[in-house]
């Protein structure tokens, strides 16, 4: 019993300790349109080692993340997001990836923003 309690406490303390480590908050622009884009962008970024939290706003195009700078950098994130189809300053998505995005996500065409994004 005591060992179990001890284990739980240790895990708690370790986690709190973890939370106090370098938590760098970063914000930059990522191109995209809709809820489907949001899903794709956040999913790609969160899987990078060192990225703890991601959030992309479809209205402002602002991407916010909390990262451990010792494990990854902003360019790691931009690079990975470009690989799944989304441009940002300095990083352009490969055409073959971009061309495979669903029609409503093709943000390079200004008209695409007016498409029906309701169901995504």
């Amino acid at each position: 019993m005591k060992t179990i309690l001890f284990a739980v406490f240790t895990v708690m303390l370790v986690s709190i300790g973890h939370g106090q480590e370098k938590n760098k908050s970063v914000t930059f622009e990522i191109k995209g349109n809709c809820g489907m884009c949001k899903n794709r962008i956040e999913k790609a970024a969160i899987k990078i080692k060192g990225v703890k939290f991601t959030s992309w706003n479809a209205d402002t195009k602002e991407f916010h993340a909390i990262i451990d700078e010792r494990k990854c950098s902003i360019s790691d994130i931009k690079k990975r997001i470009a690989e799944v189809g989304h441009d940002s300053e300095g990083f352009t998505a490969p055409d073959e990836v971009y061309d495979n995005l669903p029609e409503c996500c093709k943000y390079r065409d200004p008209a695409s923003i007016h498409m029906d994004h309701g169901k995504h």
Partner: protein
Amino acid sequence: MVRSYTFLLLLFFTFNCFSQLQVTGRVLEYNDKGKTIGLPDVNVYWLSSTIGTTTDLSGNFKIPFNKDYKFLVVSSIGHRSDTIPVNRPSLGNIVLYPNVVLEEVIVEKEFAPLQKSLFKVQNVVAVDGREMLKAACCNLSESFETNPTVDVNISDAILGAKQVQMLGLNSPYLMFTQENMPSIRGASQVFGLSFTPGSWIESIQITKGAGSVLNGFESISGHINSELVKPLADKRFFVNMYANNYERYEFNSRVNHNISDFLGVGFYIHANLRNGHIDRNKDSFLDTPLAKQVNFMNRWQYLNPENGWVSYLNMQYLSDSKEIGQSDFNPDTDKLTSNSWGSEINTSRWDLSAKVGYVFPDLPYQSFGFQTAFSSHDQNSFYGLNLYDINQNAFYSNLIFNSIIGSTQHKFKTGLSLTHDGYKETVNSSSFNRNDNTIGAFFEYTYDNLEGLSFEAGIRADHSNNLGNFVTPRFHLRQSLWDKASFRASFGRGKRGTNIFSENQQLFASSRQIVINGTGGNYYGLRPEKAWNYGVSFIQKLYLWNRVLDFSIDFYRTSFEDQIIVDWENPREIAFYNLDGKSRSNSLQIDLNYEILQDFHLRTTYKYFDVIADYNSGRLTKPLQPSYRFFVNLGYETQKKYERQWRFDITSNWLGKQRLPNTSSNPEAYQLPTHSEGYVLVNTQITRVFSNKFELYIGGENIGNFTQKEPILSSNNPFGPYFDSTILYGPVLGNTYYAGFRYKI
């Protein structure tokens, strides 16, 4: 001559048809009185073109057909534009709605009042306040009547307390929480559901199967959480009155005040009175209790998104009294005498609770919360010649820390809890005192691979003076299968001590002898109950003819390692003993919900139960448990016209036959068949919304007027050996009609 004219006319017509086909229609809107009037100067044009026209003074338009375009756009400033597929030359009446009205419609359309999630890890049914308006819904026990996940049954023919069941198990195996703090338990088990007024409830979340480790180790079949209305979000003022044809009256009122943007205070009051001496079945016993209740709550809410602090403070006081028994019973002269059988149950209760939460402003995934509650419950009662008093003082506290491991794909919750329950009971001349003290720690890990697989693995370790040291694991998993389909599985363990008297209070309304065959445990000589619960479920949502259809099926099994068997099989006694052998409950539920026509919703559910246990007299199915239940609910809401609306709702329940406890040793007059008949119950309600502030409702319960023939055995000799009101399988009260109103600003 005539011929050539006809020819010309024909030529003219054909020419008109082929080259100048006109599409016609009329654009309308609703005026203040809800009548349609023509809308002039509306732009009507082909989608993605510049070809268009405007409507005339009475709203009519005519536009040349063009085969290159398929859709007409109808737009007018201040109204929501409409796009209409053109598949016939006359489009008839097209109604445009003002922008504002439409926004409201959208909001209400997005979420059904009863939600089953595709994405939550646990199998949760979320019920919001609108769903609760569909039932007479005077208190929590009545708010499940349009909800097939939970079964509502009545404790016995005299107390008339409504109880809920899930997965074929009685309510003590369910965990009830109010805003995630344990609520209906211990002394309030039987009547507690009637201590939460329906109009105070904002939403209910029903979790089937093993719950989470956060709220404790007691839940076995599921977890029902009710969220109350929040002062900062609630209407400023609300009043509701209700009356039915059995002289039942209810009054509810809420007043909220926002002291600042961050601080709100609410005062909620509920009072009810049941004044009707009703004995329609002429068995000399009241069909429904005489009752009075006053319930008052004061709550404070602090919510500051800027600094991350959230806090609640609640104070609640309740006073409830019931008088039941023979209709000629006079408590002043007949109390505890055999002049006439009667009973009084007087309860007073205090609840104090507080919650503090903090979200780290820089780390949105990290937070901590602290909850604490104190309650004092005092029940003084007598049932005929039986005396029963119970007093419970309960303390609860729980500290929770939320964060992540590496990234938000790996979340965890961990914390500590400390609880105390002090019970003092008097059963006739014996008294039972018990203190339960528990300290525990928990850890719950949630993983989401973002590709459709997520799971929640929790474990808690507790130390209790009466339950010993033990570990409670709980596990839930969800996997997306294909488009809009999810599979879920769960397992978990629960453990609890039983308050045999307060949970089975109906036993006092019988001549049964109480027998406790203890084996040295800490609960009246009985050992605690332990059970595992396993479940799987599947849900598919799809669009059928452009409307959402959802289908779900789930199967749960609860198997008891140890259980306190409540044995009603000898009609002379009620025996409590620990399980020796097997006890398990299987439950299957199939749901199919569909919007048949616009705003016309159908809900159907079939449930099958197979609940068995080894009694001293052998293996038997659980008594008073319907073998199946078939549920149909139809709801229709008219379109809102200037805030006005009609809402119709009808619910029907078919209940299968139930096994009745063995009465074969009774004299023939007091013997019951082995099984009850199946029966059907129908409830309905009509609501008229006059404005966003005011609505009226009328309804009927049990309108088929089904009642159990002889709900009380030996009702003519309540002090004799065969008196028994506990074998109740159907309603005592026949059709009930009610009316009420709600006013809110």
